[in-house]
């Protein structure tokens, strides 16, 4: 630092990283997702997961849920920069630790093996509302909904029960109680 040849200064204090869930309501129009994602990559923000789908077909509104980590200053910038985008209607920002918000991710597991093995796998998933979407004599596709770290753990556990393929979504979020976010 002392003998910097750079024209730019480097900060010596860096605040702690936090994980936040950012919810963005946007017009469902061409290239809107790339505007949002481009903002993140262009400004060096981080995306841990992303979930997006149209939630109101009448007025063409999509809801984008982004899990991101950053210092409190960066998180604030993300929200303010997102609000500047023309197709963005509103932006919600929740801490991952926030007790008033529910976060869920979904995962599909393909398990291959004997009926006994599959049953074991299904049992292991019991806590996370497993649904069998497809079953043959040697295989099953199991759907679970859980938190990210729970799914991470399940993937590890199921390895020994014949797990051969995983497909999972980004997190989606909703507040608890009767209130909605404005």
């Amino acid at each position, binding site marked *: *630092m002392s003998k910097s*040849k*750079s*024209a730019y*200064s480097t900060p010596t204090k860096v605040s702690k990283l936090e994980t936040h869930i950012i919810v963005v309501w946007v017009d469902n129009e*061409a*290239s809107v997702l790339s505007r949002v994602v481009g903002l993140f990559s262009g400004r060096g923000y981080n995306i841990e997961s992303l979930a997006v789908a149209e939630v109101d077909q009448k007025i063409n509104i999509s809801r984008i849920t982004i899990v991101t980590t950053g210092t409190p200053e960066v998180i604030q910038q993300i929200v*303010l920069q997102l609000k*500047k985008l*023309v197709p963005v209607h509103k932006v919600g920002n929740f801490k991952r630790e926030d007790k008033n918000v529910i976060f869920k991710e979904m995962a599909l597991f393909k398990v291959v093996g004997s009926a006994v093995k599959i049953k074991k796998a299904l049992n292991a998933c019991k806590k996370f509302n497993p649904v069998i979407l497809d079953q043959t004599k040697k295989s099953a596709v199991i759907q679970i909904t859980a938190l990210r770290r729970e799914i991470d753990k399940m993937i590890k556990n199921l390895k020994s029960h014949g797990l051969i393929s995983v497909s999972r979504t980004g997190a989606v979020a909703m507040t608890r109680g009767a209130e909605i976010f404005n």
Partner: protein
Amino acid sequence: MPKLYTGAEIVFKCLEEKKVNHIFGYPGGAVLPIYDELKNHTSIKHILVRHEQGAGHAAEGYARSSGKPGVVLVTSGPGATNVVTALTDAYMDSVPLVCISGQVPTHLIGTDAFQECDTTGITRPCTKHNWLVKDVNDLQRIMHEAFEVATTGRPGPVLVDIPKDIQFAKTKYISLKKEKKIEIKNKNRFNQKDIDQLIELMNKASKPIFYTGGGVVNSGPKASELLRELVALTGFPITSTLQGLGSYPGDDNQFLGMLGMHGTYEANNAMHDCDLLINIGARFDDRITGKIDEFSPKSKKVHIDIDPSSINKIIKVDLAIVGDVTDVIKSTTKTLKKKNINLEKSNKQKISKWWQQIQKWRSKESLNFINSDKIIKPQHAVQRLYELTKNQDTFITTEVGQHQMWAAQHYKFNKPNRWMTSGGLGTMGYGLPAAIGVQVANPKKLVIDVAGEASILMTMQEISTAIQYNLPIKIFILNNQYMGMVRQWQELLHEKNYSESYSEALPDFVKLAEAYGCVGIRAENPDELDKKIEEMINIDKPVIFDCHVDQAENCFPMIPSGKPHNQMLLGPKDQEENKITGKGKALV
């Protein structure tokens, strides 16, 4: 049945409704239908440039000097990619531009057609918003929205990409008046409580300072008038960023000069030591703040800005007022007058010590340089240019580098919209085309591009545009045969290894001027400088002025990298006096 209009006609109808008088552009295959329509709209004059980057910068100069949005018209593919630098420049410096680009026909998009590129994809990060028009029925709405987005809130560039088949397709046109007004995003979000808080801080402060920026200029001429009133009312010192120059008179006693990396000693030290910093329309750019951790450590900070995302982006502030500068200052002065009739007097006593301290810093005369009677010093050249042009309404543009900083330091601006320079992006080659745009918007006025010989060669071709439209711009080149700022950094930071910063083969600028059909003047010694500058001013044609200056001159004062405001590197005179020549180098 209502009359049907083609897409090309609709483009012009929208431009007419927006009272556009000039567009800067360059034709090509994918915009031919729009160019074909040009002849039917006599209120709109097209300025043909020589390169699309020139069109973009010319439109920027036009916008900055007139307060109206600049309009650019380019073709697909290379036309669009060439304008990207200018769009990025406008985005960084908040200049309202509407760029219309042609695109290959809809059915060919995505097939790598001739002169096809993903224009909206490429320009997405360098515009406030952009549109690809896929249906002619959307064109009118999009055109109006484009002007709305470009000119409201924090201004900036937008781009409308129109495929060739859409330019031919027909639809109805509904006049703007009948249309629903488009909702405006990001307007004022402050209330009286914020203003009261600001005034309380002002009352308490004993070392206050105003730090104003381009936002004051962007807010319109009224903002500058109000700022002058506010500064007079409070008796506070004021400093300005590069982009804000002119919004407060440069020769006024309360003005401390520009701040930042090449700002004055008094402005930077006052920023460092103040106890109240009122930022009006500036964005704490890294050329301003220096080392962030040690930026103005003892002050309460107020930030007035129209863009909420500028608040707390770089520097955490104590009071944020989101709104248009004009409206915020108006409310502030109104409340000030209502509540504190004697503020001026009481304040002046309270801050008199502060002014004494500022006078001490001022006495360093940090902009001083050692003049010579044998060789033209670049600072001297700018000072003479100022003295010989200050009695008329002069517009100055610049390129980027040492000459730009010397112009900012030594040319004193008294009005807003008279100073056009590329600050955020730092685009060499900005000044010549910008001067063209300024001259188009301000015919009969004196327009000078203070240039460097390296920068000017980047967009030299536009002198041909100036000739074509009889735009008598003056290109004042401070010729030191080096990329001066690069050379300076190499001298101070890279052990004088002047890697690739010397231009081996420069053109003879006088002959070059003649080749283009304008006038060339060369000045080589201080004795002839005044006479030749006067000669330049009196020629009613474009002039290229080749001013040979000291090659070794450095731009001081300077905040070395990674240093706070109160550790400035002063000029050679001061360095000798304090014998820190050796240490000074270690500083950087």
